[in-house]
């Protein structure tokens, strides 16, 4: 499990903890996000994703540990670091009484965009986030999708080096989700992006690495593929065959690499079974199974099932909870 990114790190968390009173929200969290890397931050609701984002953005300070963004310590160089961060909080922070372009101009000025560049900078983010139709609208009149995209637009202003996005696609329709992902992907090619979400599919689409956290602890951090490979438990081969149940079970269990077999009769059939085999995570095992079954009986279907990120995620989260309960 690689906690440190291979690229030069733009975000560094070193043993970061956060306590509110006696309650510890974040336990000893360490990881990095490199320049030119998109890291997905995955966890169930209340896992500590938002608190972590807030600590990186400088909204709250860690109780212990250190957060560094673009080489600047958030505890002492907060303001200089803030100029390098684009942050979209969980709830897009918008002033309802302002109109879209007044709001963006306000943020651009504070981010230090030069007066003569403000117009072109506004045009850039309005184009990227597809806000052209609403530039003159008052913010309170905007739909949820537009509000979310306006939140993203303000984060992109001033060409930040680091982008922190707390559930950036929440509330968007499928077309908008697609466009937003493209914006993030394009930005992530040259910058560092930390993206929190609970949509697992999103993570596999745009993230180079995934950090899974639950109850304030980092459970795993790796590439989506790496996490899937590491999760051997969910490797299985599924097949349908017309054969007597017991001989079929014995035949399958005799194949090296098959650990467990579950057989059930298909509804409405007399001897066609649905079989699920738990197998070791090595290649070629499905062809052994296919040969063994087809040589004696009739094989209708055979499929090697890859572990989905859903399963990987649930396994990590549940295992983490079990470990702590045992402790």
């Amino acid at each position: 499990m690689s906690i440190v990114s291979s690229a030069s790190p733009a975000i560094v968390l070193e043993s970061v903890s956060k306590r509110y009173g006696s309650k510890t929200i974040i336990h000893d969290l360490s990881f990095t996000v490199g320049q030119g890397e998109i890291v997905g931050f995955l966890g169930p609701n209340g896992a500590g994703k938002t608190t972590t984002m807030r600590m990186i953005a400088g909204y709250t300070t860690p109780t212990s540990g250190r957060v560094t963004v673009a080489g600047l310590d958030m505890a002492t160089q907060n303001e200089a670091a803030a100029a390098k961060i684009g942050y979209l909080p969980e709830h897009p922070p918008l002033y309802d009484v302002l109109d879209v372009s007044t709001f963006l101009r306000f943020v651009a000025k504070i981010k230090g965009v030069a007066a003569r560049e403000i117009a072109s900078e506004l045009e850039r983010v309005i184009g990227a986030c597809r806000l052209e139709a609403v530039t003159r609208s008052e913010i309170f009149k905007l739909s949820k999708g537009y509000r979310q995209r306006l939140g993203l637009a303000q984060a992109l202003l001033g060409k930040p080096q680091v982008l922190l996005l707390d559930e950036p696609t929440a509330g968007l329709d499928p077309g908008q989700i697609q466009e937003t992902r493209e914006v993030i992907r394009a930005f992530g090619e040259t910058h560092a992006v930390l993206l929190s979400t609970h949509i697992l599919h999103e993570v596999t689409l745009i993230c180079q690495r995934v950090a899974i956290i639950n109850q304030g602890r980092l459970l795993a951090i790796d590439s989506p593929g790496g996490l899937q490979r590491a999760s051997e438990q969910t490797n299985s081969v599924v097949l349908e065959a017309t054969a007597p149940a017991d001989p079929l079970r014995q035949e399958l269990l005799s194949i090296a690499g098959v650990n467990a077999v579950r057989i059930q009769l298909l509804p409405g059939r007399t001897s066609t079974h649905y079989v699920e085999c738990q197998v070791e995570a090595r290649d070629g095992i499905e062809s052994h199974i296919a040969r063994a079954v087809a040589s004696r009986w009739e094989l209708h279907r055979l499929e090697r099932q890859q572990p989905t990120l859903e399963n990987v995620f649930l396994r990590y989260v549940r295992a983490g909870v079990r470990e702590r309960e045992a402790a």
Partner: protein
Amino acid sequence: MRGLLAIYQKELVSYFRSPIPYFAVSVFLVLTGFFFLRNVFETGIGTMDETLQNMGVLLLIIVPVLTMRLFSGEYTGRTMELLMTLPLKPWQIVLGKYLGATTILLLMTLATCIDLIPLYLYGNPETKTILSGYLGFVLLGMAGLAIGQFFSALTQNQIVAALGSVLVLLAFWFVGHLQSFQSSYALRSLFGYLSFSQHFADFIRGLVRSEAVMFYLIVSAIALTLNTSYLQWRR
């Protein structure tokens, strides 16, 4: 400096685009007009003394309405997270908002000058006394705004912020009355010194004492410093 200016401009736009300040300022102007008519036309005395006194009391109620939104609104609108993560220092946020509120106070004060037209047309008022009274009024308002803004930072609830600052402003206004109950000289002078109304009365009489000017400015500075420290502490 640009950050401070951006906050200031945003505050002004927010004031002009929300209904509550219009309502508060209208109530203030209508009541000021009413007191002016009563004080000047019913008595026939051509001064602003009584009217400025009434305006001072009205200010204690109007100021919290102008300031209650300043931070409470940022909390409930979840925009505080934006302000605190932009490249801004907390003092820039506090001062930008304060200057915005002060601008509204100045505009409101300017609007009351309409009362001076009949005063100068039909009477012979002392300009210096009026100017001194207005200076006192603005300083009193600035101290009130700083206190109201600090209370607004303490709570998400605008009503609580307004009620809290009204209480504190009334306490500062009436604290001078406690003087007569005190036998100790130190306490008597302390209560006198803390009294908003006693300092304001000097201004109305045409007395611009540097001690009184400093008093209002120091109260403002303390409230703004507390406000800044609170934002820093919240992080």
